[in-house]
């Protein structure tokens, strides 16, 4: 119960943040040169001033900024994100179509980065300043320095073009009509490279944090107490060090949720995945500002939800957090 009270408190506290983001973004987008109607006209190959004016009235773009902001926020409460002129559908519909791919990518990349980072960090800390540590730390540095889009491209060259082990892009094999388990496996095969690509830098960050945190905790008094009890070194690490050392890493997941979502823009673009990130890129190129604002809203909510889950986890791990 304490856990939920805590996390809900934080969740409520993030509502003003959300409003701040929306208002800020809305105002920012007003500064953009050209609006949806310009983009639409350009797509249609031009049109006269009368048509532009009619379209502006149709999309409600002829009102003052304050009025439109009010309207927009009012509609948001009912989860109405407006209409995308480019896709010809409500923004909410466009986003919901694209959300699953991004969620799947994020969950798999996060799990990969978390567990691999945890494992490598622990191994490095237990062999500190010996070769396994040097190897892992060096790999961490290199992974950290690798631009994800470039890693993705090179992985395609190696694994798709030369070795032909894995597909180069997309979410599933088009036109094969897989169902059931085959479909799941097919999607999993498609997700291997994107997961590695997106997760790589976070793996590097987590392993570095985990290593440092393990070393820090290993030097604390209660570890000495555990050793003085005659526990085996494995038990000392498993029962006393690990959980304490995980705390900073868990905090980091919440802090970096936004960064990871941002990273998916590039990764989805490299692997032609039909996700939210690619949608963001397309909306920028096509000047579909309504959709862009909708993506900002959904991303912020996504980050807030991830932080809520992280808070739940943290409060479960650490009984000292004040109820």
């Amino acid at each position, binding site marked *: 119960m304490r856990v939920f009270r805590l996390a809900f*408190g934080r969740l409520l506290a993030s509502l003003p943040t959300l409003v701040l983001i929306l208002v800020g973004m809305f105002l920012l987008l007003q500064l953009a040169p050209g609006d949806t109607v310009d983009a639409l006209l350009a797509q249609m190959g031009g049109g006269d001033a009368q048509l532009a004016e009619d379209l502006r009235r149709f999309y409600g773009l002829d009102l003052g900024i304050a009025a439109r902001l009010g309207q927009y926020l009012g509609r948001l409460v009912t989860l109405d994100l407006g209409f995308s002129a480019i896709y010809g559908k409500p923004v909410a519909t466009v986003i919901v179509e694209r959300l699953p791919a991004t969620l799947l990518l994020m969950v798999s990349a996060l799990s990969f980065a978390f567990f691999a980072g945890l494992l490598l960090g622990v191994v490095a800390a237990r062999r500190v300043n010996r070769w396994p540590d040097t190897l892992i730390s060096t790999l961490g540095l290199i992974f950290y320095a690798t631009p994800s889009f470039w890693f993705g491209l090179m992985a395609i060259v190696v694994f798709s073009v030369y070795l032909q082990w894995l597909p180069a892009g997309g979410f599933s094999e088009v036109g094969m009509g897989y169902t059931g388990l085959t479909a799941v496996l097919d999607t999993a095969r498609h997700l291997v490279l994107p997961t590695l690509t997106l997760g790589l830098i976070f793996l590097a960050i987590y392993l570095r944090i985990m290593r440092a945190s393990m070393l820090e905790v290993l030097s604390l*008094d*209660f570890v000495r*107490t*555990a050793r*003085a009890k*005659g526990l085996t070194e494995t*038990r000392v690490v498993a029962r006393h060090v690990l959980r304490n050392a995980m705390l900073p890493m868990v905090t980091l997941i919440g802090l970096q949720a936004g960064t990871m979502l941002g990273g998916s823009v590039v990764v989805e673009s490299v692997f032609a995945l039909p996700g939210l990130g690619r949608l963001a890129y397309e909306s920028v190129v096509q000047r579909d500002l309504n959709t862009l604002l909708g993506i900002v809203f959904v991303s912020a909510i996504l980050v807030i939800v991830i932080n809520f889950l992280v808070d739940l986890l943290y409060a479960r791990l650490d009984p000292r957090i004040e109820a």
Partner: protein
Amino acid sequence: MKGLSVEGLTVRLPPGADRAFAVEEVSLSVAPGEILCVVGESGSGKSVTASAVMGLLAPGLSVTGGRMSLSGEDLRVKTPEEWRSLRGRRIAMVFQEPMTALNPLMTVGRQIGETWRTHLGLDAREASRRALDALREVNLPDPEGALRAFPHELSGGQRQRVMIAMALALNPEVLVCDEPTTALDVTTQAQVIALIKELQRRHGTAVLFITHDFGVVAEIADRVAVMQHGRVVEQGTASEVLTAPRHAYTQALLAAVPGRSAPPPRELSSDIVLEVSGLTKTYASRRLFRRRKPVRALDNVSLALRRGSTLAVVGESGSGKSTLARCVVRLLGTDGGEVRVAGAPLPKGRRAAAGLVQMVFQDPYASLNPRRTAGAQVAQGPIATGTPRREAMAEARRLFGLVGLDPESVLRFPHEFSGGQRQRIGIARALAMQPSVLVADEPVSALDVSVQAQVLALLRELQGQLGLSILFITHDLRVAAQLCDEVVVMRNGVVEEQGPIREVFEAPRHPYTRSLIEAIPGRRLMGVR
């Protein structure tokens, strides 16, 4: 022989340390049913000795010579695995810091239970049942609750009882206690010492007790070993060492024990320089949806400091004494009451107040800016209030001389000074503002006894020279007795008793004051001479 025996133990420090050996040629032994106190100041090697006999030396340290044996078994030939099976079963340890010595994420019951689970392979239920018995044996209130509690839910004294229960779980032959009561309040300390003695008698354990405090030695020791710079300089029965110390270092340490040489009472001025009336301070932590129960740190506190005298404010942790100090110098705001200095309310402006009240802080390492020279930190106050830089630096040099430092060391950085020297810089910094009142917040409690005695002597000397009026905050009644003219005893934000220090000590009126005085370790010692 039974028990623990150490002969000619030598522990090497890693290259680059300030000396080659942490411990050199140390020989000690503890028989079953006996308590050996190892006494020394910081850096004497007493804690390293304790770690060595547990096989828990910090990385970089290594035993390079001598013998250690447990009931005749050679400990130096043990493999790590054999060490592991000894620890907790035949030799156990209680550490200094009860706040950090327990895993914050694991319940107390499980942490105690681990010992049996590891060494005897008991299941969780049986381990938990035994843990409950163990908690009962160390007289923990509500043992069932404590079993399920996390360490942060217990007080320092309770945690130390948990540590003791854990150490004695398998009835070890030898118990090593590394300053187990140093972090505790004086009344809690007395209880924990009594508990260790009682359990040790009951189980016939051999106890190696590390401490820096001769008062504690007088309470608990059968035999004493005094260590200095990694060597044992004197060893003998408690009464021999305490009443007829042979080695000069032991004699100096004993002479430095505070409270042994209380000065005679003196004529006090009737002029009140600092008057605190009805001071109230409440800590309420507000959060988004609820308020925690407000804590009343100061409740209608009134006191008066006479010009040229020293007033001690004595209390245990949580008594509000430090809050009082910070409210008096207005580092903390108050909720009610008034602070008057030299007859007028303390002005609100930072600069105007600077010439009236100054403070000396507890931690000599945190109270100086590590990135600026010592002299600059003394001179910056006068410079901020308009003294020309040259003049202020000259004054800083003079003050350095006054507090017993080399005037040329004004250009050095804080890390080049020892703890006692830093405390002198802190005093010089306060004096540079020529305050009417000096508030000293536990100024000697982070220092070794011998340094403590020097700083106390300096304060007394400066008081004579400059006519200082000092409000002296301390948890240590012995220190108060050594320096102060009058005393205020605080508990839970309330003044329980006040008066001339000798009267309060000899005839305490309030039962709390009495219990504090009775808990002073080594009262016998204070009365010896």
